[in-house]
């Protein structure tokens, strides 16, 4: 557990400060800062990936450039940096009729929702900020914080488009949490634990021990989880809250500059979180796909990152391929398709586990 580890380390090297709580605060701050830096860098990388993958799909070249002048850098590598700088230096506009307090609060709220999920994501056997015994439950729980932030943003903007976006996203995220949770229950049934590390430990021993291949019901659960995750992160085909051709930009219509960047950042952070949960719950987490091969702690980070990267690539791929659903069709898919299938799936997994269980 990282916080305890850093706290012990600090106590050892700075014995003069121990006892007044300062070191504990410091020990908590360090992993948070590291995570924040990680999210920022990850966002730049995934924005670049999104640009390049979409260019590949759409038969264009995407960001290009030579050297490090005022172009976008070699292969356009500096394009996301330029985007980030542009957003940082933009004028900060708050509409006159907006509710200032809520308007300012919303981008931070949504980012907190995405950020706190990161503490329970295991990157390796010992690389986890907080190894909670209810890790998967915790991530599902704090993931719902985003709804509050979206409603705040939509309501406080005092804009009809924002309001539409907020109402759509509230309905959407709340609904899709149910199939997402239901499909994760199957994982919990099999492993008998809510702890992320224990779920991963269960899948030890190569690709065929992953939960995905545990029994024939699990792939269904995985697909349901992945599609629900798309809906929860407002990605196409479920990007109704910010559908640019209908609602201008949905709940972010009135946001600009840094505040807009925070919405953007948390969308990408959420993508990471849901992919990490999928990788942990179904794809063996930081375990190597081949038992005993490249499974040192350093390679563990590599394995989980490549699994997450693969899932994010699929999300980008889907985004640039399919059209958008309509709001009532979205609800139909959730309540009339995913929910019944998910429930039947739970029974299937439960019976399978009881009869043929490990």
């Amino acid at each position, binding site marked *: 557990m990282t916080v305890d580890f850093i706290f012990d380390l600090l106590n050892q090297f700075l014995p003069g400060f121990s006892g007044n709580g300062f070191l504990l605060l410091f020990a908590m701050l360090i992993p948070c800062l590291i995570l924040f830096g990680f999210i920022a860098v990850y966002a730049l990388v995934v924005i670049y990936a999104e640009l390049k993958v979409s260019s590949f799909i759409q038969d264009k070249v995407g960001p290009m450039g030579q050297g490090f002048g005022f172009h976008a850098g070699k292969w356009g590598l500096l394009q996301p940096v330029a985007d980030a700088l542009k957003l940082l230096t933009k004028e900060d506009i708050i509409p006159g009729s907006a509710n200032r307090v809520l308007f300012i609060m919303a981008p931070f709220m949504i980012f907190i929702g995405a950020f706190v999920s990161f503490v329970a994501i295991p990157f390796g056997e010992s690389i986890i900020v907080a190894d909670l015994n209810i890790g998967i439950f915790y991530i599902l729980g704090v993931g719902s914080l985003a709804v509050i932030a979206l409603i705040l943003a939509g309501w406080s903007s005092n804009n009809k488009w924002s309001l539409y976006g907020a109402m759509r996203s509230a309905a959407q995220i709340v609904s899709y949490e149910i199939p997402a949770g239901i499909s994760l229950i199957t994982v919990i049934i099999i492993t008998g634990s809510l702890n992320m590390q224990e779920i991963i430990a269960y899948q030890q021993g190569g690709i065929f021990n992953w939960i995905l291949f545990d029994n024939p019901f699990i792939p269904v659960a995985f697909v349901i989880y992945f599609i629900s995750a798309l809906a929860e992160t407002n990605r196409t085909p479920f990007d109704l809250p910010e559908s*640019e051709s209908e609602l201008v930009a949905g709940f972010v219509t009135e946001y600009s500059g840094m505040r807009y960047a925070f919405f953007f950042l948390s969308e990408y952070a959420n993508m990471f979180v849901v992919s990490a949960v999928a990788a942990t719950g179904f794809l063996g987490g930081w375990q190597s796909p081949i038992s005993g091969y490249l499974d040192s702690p350093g390679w563990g980070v590599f394995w989980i990152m490549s699994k997450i990267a693969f899932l994010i690539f699929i999300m980008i791929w889907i985004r640039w391929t399919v059209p958008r659903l309509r709001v009532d069709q979205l609800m139909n898919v959730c309540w009339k398709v995913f929910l019944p299938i998910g429930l039947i799936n739970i029974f299937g997994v439960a019976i399978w586990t009881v009869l043929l269980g490990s």
Partner: protein
Amino acid sequence: MGVVHGQEMVLNIGPQHPATHGVLRLQVKTDGEVVSEITPYLGYLHRCFEKHCENVTYEQVIPYTDRCDYLASMTNNFGYVVAVEALMDIKVNDRVEHIRVIMAELQRIASHLLGLGAFGLDVGAFTPFLHMLRDRERILDLFEMTCGARLLYNYMWVGGLSHDLPVGFVESTYNFLDYFEPKIDEFVNLLVHNKIFVERTADIGRMPQEVAVSYGVTGPNLRASGVKWDLRKNDPYSIYKSFEFDVPVGEGGKGSVGDCWDRFYVRVLEMKESIKILRQALASLPKEGDIHQSIPKKIRPPKGTIYKRTESPRGDLGYYIESDGTNIPYRLKMRSPAFTALSVIDEIAAGWLLSDVLAILGSLDIVLGEIDR
């Protein structure tokens, strides 16, 4: 906008909105997501086209027609010069006629490509839009090769054309057709049969035959409702009589006749028919013929009036010209197909959800430059 009840909200879509295809403002009355009333407001792009025409000579009108339907400038030129030529009783030679048809059909494909792509964009499919723009670009390259312009051509003149076809144009066009024909099937696979796309468009915004006819809707929108009406067949102008092609009509392939999906698919089929015409026209293109042969020294039509209509990518494009015997039209009226298409929106889109209204608007394929003029 009538009485707004407690639960209802009035929403302004546009004039600055990503889905209005220009500067259109739709005032919609919504109850939650359901739209109960739509009022389009026009005039944001009004440039006094008809009044301008009363003050410039006949040949100077042609660049103005370019700027009406800026996505189908060639066919706008075409309609105007056909009208003036009929008024002056000018016959152009075969080569000019062939080149005009080739240009008009290329323009039809280009216009449909943009219309279909933008419709895809309206329902959230971004990639097909760029694929279609990529192919449209090749048509614009052909136009650029011919007359130097990519959007506003001023290519067809009364009695002739501004430039002859450049060397290599025919081969380039053949190359384009060979490249483009399989691409249509790609679009069909990518978008037309996409499950989500079908869900979003089939049975949505159905325009019954009677409604379409009574509103005067023409072009692909009318044909999607099952009416076989194409001026190239029903009132042939130029040399369209000599080509073989079909007039595709909506058959309700995924839902009912006249829905958004039909309006989309009819345009796809029309591109295929245009390719047929292009192949025939290129094959029979006369080698000889001076394109400036019939251009009159002075364009002074005799006193009289004429109404001539042609099939633009959006429907019946009519020009009414009243001449008082001078070199300036006394009155010029343009019948815009997009205008009638827009007028039907309240009839077919009321009662649908907000997302559907924008899909229906996209399926009508309007161009605001032509509506406002």
